[in-house]
C-alpha cells in the first residue's frame, strides 16, 4: 500500500508541482478552447492567447514562487532570532 501511495504521489507530482501554475495552465487552455470553438476569435488569435497566456502564467508562477520562498526563509530567520535571548 505504501508503494502504491508513493507511485500515485509521484504521478500527481509530475503534473501538479505547483497548484497555482497547474490551475493557470488549465484556465488558459479552457479559455482558448472556449473562444476558438465558439468562433469569437479566429483560431490563430486563439493560438496567440494560448501561447502568450502560458508565458504569463509561467512568469507569474516564478515571481510567486520567489516571493513565497523568500518570505518563508525570512519567517524562519525571525523565529530563530526571537528565540535567542
Amino acid at each position, binding site marked *: 500500500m505504501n*508503494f502504491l501511495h*508513493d*507511485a500515485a504521489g*509521484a*504521478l500527481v507530482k*509530475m*503534473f*501538479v*508541482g*505547483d497548484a497555482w*501554475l*497547474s490551475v493557470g*495552465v*488549465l484556465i488558459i*487552455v479552457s479559455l*482558448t*478552447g472556449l473562444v*476558438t*470553438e465558439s468562433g469569437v476569435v479566429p*483560431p*490563430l488569435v*486563439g*493560438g496567440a492567447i*494560448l*501561447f502568450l497566456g*502560458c*508565458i504569463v*502564467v*509561467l*512568469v507569474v*508562477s*516564478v*515571481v510567486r*514562487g*520567489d516571493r513565497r*520562498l*523568500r518570505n518563508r526563509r525570512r519567517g524562519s530567520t525571525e523565529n530563530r532570532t526571537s528565540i535567542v535571548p
Partner: protein
Amino acid sequence: MISFTTAAPAVGAAFLASLVEVVEAFTIVLAAGTLRGWRAAFVGTAAGLAALAAIVVALGPLLDQVPLHFLQLVIGVLLLLFGMGWLRKAVLRAARIIPFHDENAAFAAETVDATDAATLRRSGFDWLGGVMAFKAILLEGLEVVFIVIAVGAGRDLLLPASLGALGACIVVLVVGAIVRRPLARVPENSLKFAVGAILCAFGVFWTGEGLGIAWPGADLMILFFGAAFLLVGLGAAAVVRQSVGAIAR
C-alpha cells in the same frame, strides 16, 4: 518513411528529457547495489523494467483507439503541466532561490535510508535493496514512458522518440558502469531548463492542434515556441537573481 528533420526533434527531446530521469534512477540503483548487494539491485531493476513493459504493452494499444485531436489535446495539456513545472523549477534554481539537485547528496540520502532501515534478509535475498531498485526504475521509468508518448504520439513518432529514450539509457549505463559513482557532473539544471522549454513548446503546439488551430509554418512553430520559452525563462531567472542580489546588498 519518416524524414530526419521530422524525427530529429522527437529523438533529441526524448533523449535529453529521459537522460535526467535515467540519471536519477541510476543514482538510487547504485545506492541499492553498493549497500544492499548487486543481486538484489539487479533483480529489482529487472522487475521494474518488466512492470514497465507490462504497463506499456497493456496501455499502448489504447492510444490507437483515441481520436487524434483528442489525443493531441490531452497530451498537449499534460506536456504543458509537466514542462512548465520543470521550467519553473529550473528558473528558481538558476536564480539560486531553491538549491540545485545534487546526485551526490541524493546518493548519500539513499545510503543513510538503506543503512538505517531494518534488514529483511529471507533466504539470502535482500528485499529492501530489491524494492529500492524496483521503485526507482518503475517511478522514473513511468516518467520516461510519458515523455516518449508525449513527444511521439501526436505525429506517429513513437519509434524515434523511443530510440531517443533508449539512447539515454545506454549512455547513462555505459558512463555509470565506467565511473561507478553517481553521475553528479551531468548539468541537470541546464538540461531541465532546455528540456522544460522544449516540452512547453511541444505542449503549446499539440494543445493548439488539438483545439483545431493550424499553426503557420507547421512544425517550425515548435522551434519558435521553444526559443521563446527559453528566452523568457532565462530572462526571469536573471531578473529574480538580480532582485535577490539587490536585497542581499
